[in-house]
């Protein structure tokens, strides 16, 4: 779960990392009101969207207070990488003397938490890493032993953090790490971390929380807002892993690997999947039905390919869900179905029984390769 900048900053501030004064506005009137109370002549308007590259997309503006409301009208309703801007963070404009970077994320390879720091910030950290690898400090922390002071010092010496800001950045890295651990983050970063005449501030902030930990991370779980397209939001609220894509072949599979392999096969056969949809392991009949329901509401879908290989997922349960969906939803779309694995026999029996009585456009296939070919055929790919 990604937190919005303003939410991340709220967490940072609570744990002693200084952030600019500011507040979230939902309308130009609110923008004017908030801007009025901030220090200085100018304010910063920052679109709150959960993608990178806002700045380049024109989602950030520095304006005179008197022009803040007017300018905000341009930003509200803007689309950045497909996401509508509905909230603006209105902040004081800092007197920036220097930009630095600190961040941390999971280190899959070393099974730890990798800390990054740079005395150069404000640009894309990946770009810095590529062009000035010497300017990046890097340190993997063992999660069992936790972060020790000497590691922070090594990190900051490697990053070339100037002596005069060393103590401030040291404190910020320690606080950021305890936020990372306490909130069970996957990633958190401050870019840029800025030096001003009154101290070091987090001018921007990212904090992504592990979804699997939300059940015990109540404080941030409350921030949860479903994001993306309407169908994606609905899917997420129902616990279905769904991503809208460009094509016209609806895909339902179990397991991320199987779902991806199904998409890959459709491409190989010359078709284009309309979505990624993974019902996960051990799906219930209701979840299967909800998945069918979801896909049928995507107008670009011309055919649905249901590709199940049962393990913890049971073919009979999937079959029941399908029958339920076909009975309750007005289905015009042809469905290609492949069932194999756990309780395969029973699953096929349920489907065949249903097909005997109902002349649905349902094609039962033996292999996923055959299924992909059939789906592409029916989809007119």
């Amino acid at each position, binding site marked *: 779960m990604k937190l919005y900048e303003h939410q991340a900053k709220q967490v940072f501030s609570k744990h002693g990392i200084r952030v600019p004064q500011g507040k979230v506005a939902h309308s130009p009137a609110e923008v004017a009101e908030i801007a009025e109370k901030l220090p200085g002549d100018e304010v910063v308007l920052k679109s709150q969207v959960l993608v990178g590259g806002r700045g380049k997309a024109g989602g950030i503006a520095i304006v005179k207070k008197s022009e803040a409301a007017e300018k905000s009208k341009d930003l509200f309703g803007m689309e950045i990488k497909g996401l509508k801007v509905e909230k603006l963070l209105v902040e004081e404009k800092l007197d920036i003397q220097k930009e630095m970077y600190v961040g941390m994320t999971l280190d899959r390879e070393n099974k730890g938490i990798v800390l990054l720091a740079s005395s150069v910030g404000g640009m894309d950290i990946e770009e810095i890493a590529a062009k000035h690898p010497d300017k990046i400090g890097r340190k993997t922390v063992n999660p069992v032993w936790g972060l020790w002071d000497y590691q922070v010092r090594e990190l900051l010496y490697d990053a070339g953090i100037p002596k005069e800001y060393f103590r401030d950045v040291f404190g910020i890295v320690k606080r950021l790490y305890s936020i990372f651990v306490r909130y*069970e983050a996957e990633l958190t970063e401050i870019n840029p971390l800025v030096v001003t005449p009154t101290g070091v501030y987090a001018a921007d902030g990212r904090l992504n929380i592990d979804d699997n930990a939300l059940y015990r991370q109540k404080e941030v779980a409350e921030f949860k807002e479903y994001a993306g397209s309407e169908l994606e939001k609905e899917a997420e609220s129902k616990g279905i892993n769904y991503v809208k894509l460009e094509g016209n072949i609806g895909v339902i599979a179990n397991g991320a690997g199987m779902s991806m*392999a199904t998409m890959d096969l459709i491409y190989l056969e010359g078709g284009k999947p309309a979505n990624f949809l993974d019902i*996960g392991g051990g799906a219930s009949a209701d979840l299967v039905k909800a998945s069918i329901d979801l896909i049928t509401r995507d107008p670009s879908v011309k055919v649905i390919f249901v590709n199940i290989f049962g393990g*913890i997922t049971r073919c009979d349960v999937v079959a029941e869900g399908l029958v339920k969906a076909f009975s309750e939803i007005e289905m015009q779309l042809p469905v290609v179905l492949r069932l194999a694995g756990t309780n395969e026999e029973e699953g096929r029996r349920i489907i065949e029984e249903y097909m005997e009585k109902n002349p649905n456009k349902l094609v039962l296939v033996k292999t996923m390769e055959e299924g992909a070919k059939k789906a592409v055929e029916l989809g007119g790919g």
Partner: protein
Amino acid sequence: MAIIADENTKAVVQGITGYQGSFHTERMLKFGTKIVAGVTPGKAGEKVHGVPVFNTVREAVEETKANASVIFVPPAFAADAVFEAIEGGIKVVVCITEGIPVHDELKMYWKAKQNDVILIGPNCPGVMSPGKSHLGIMPADIFKQGNVGIVSRSGTLTYQIAYNISNLGLGQSTVVGIGGDRIIGSDFIDILKMYEKDDQTEIIVLVGEIGGTDEENAAEFIASEISKPVVGYIAGITAPPGKRMGHAGAIIEGGKGTAESKIKALENADVKVGKTPMEVAEIVKSLLK
């Protein structure tokens, strides 16, 4: 011989009284796995499909000499279950549970590592040695005893590929689903090492997917350390970068870990990479002749 699980495996099922635990215990028993004990705190004395239930792993091991564990407890309690298994003296821990917080998974990894315990998973389908032992949730019918070793990050894809191999008249020495989470107990390299040493295994199938650099690291290892032929498959060639694909293990991070990069790395290590699950089986068959 097979790897990880064989005739000498005596397993305890943690969370045996739960719905999944009970269901899959029955299936494992039917397959022939020696399930000697179950563990659910507070339910000592009960029986599940004839298997005696204990309050603690320690007791279960003392009473039954179990040497492996299959874990079905809910995600909030899974790390504790892994720790209990390890401290209880279990040497092979297969954690089926999906949805474990990643900060817990980090601790599980190090605990297993420090105690020289083989941890498979979490969020994995388990380990299957056809004709010998099955620790997990795989559909047993599709496997046949043979000499193909399979190691895979994806559950269902594993079944698919094993199924295809069986249908071509071949069989598997062992099939290991290492799990799709970002932090897992055993990675490709850990399992490749075992297959390399295993007499029964003549050829290895590696099933990967986008995300992380585990496949790239495995390719490097194969080039220098593995003498047996390896066939690969990578899912996610058409996955849009940056979009979240189901479980977090499949996020493409920072441009690295693409299917292209993995396929290239494997091919550079002389691994034949199949374009479809069927093609993988066909390559295996051709190489075994």
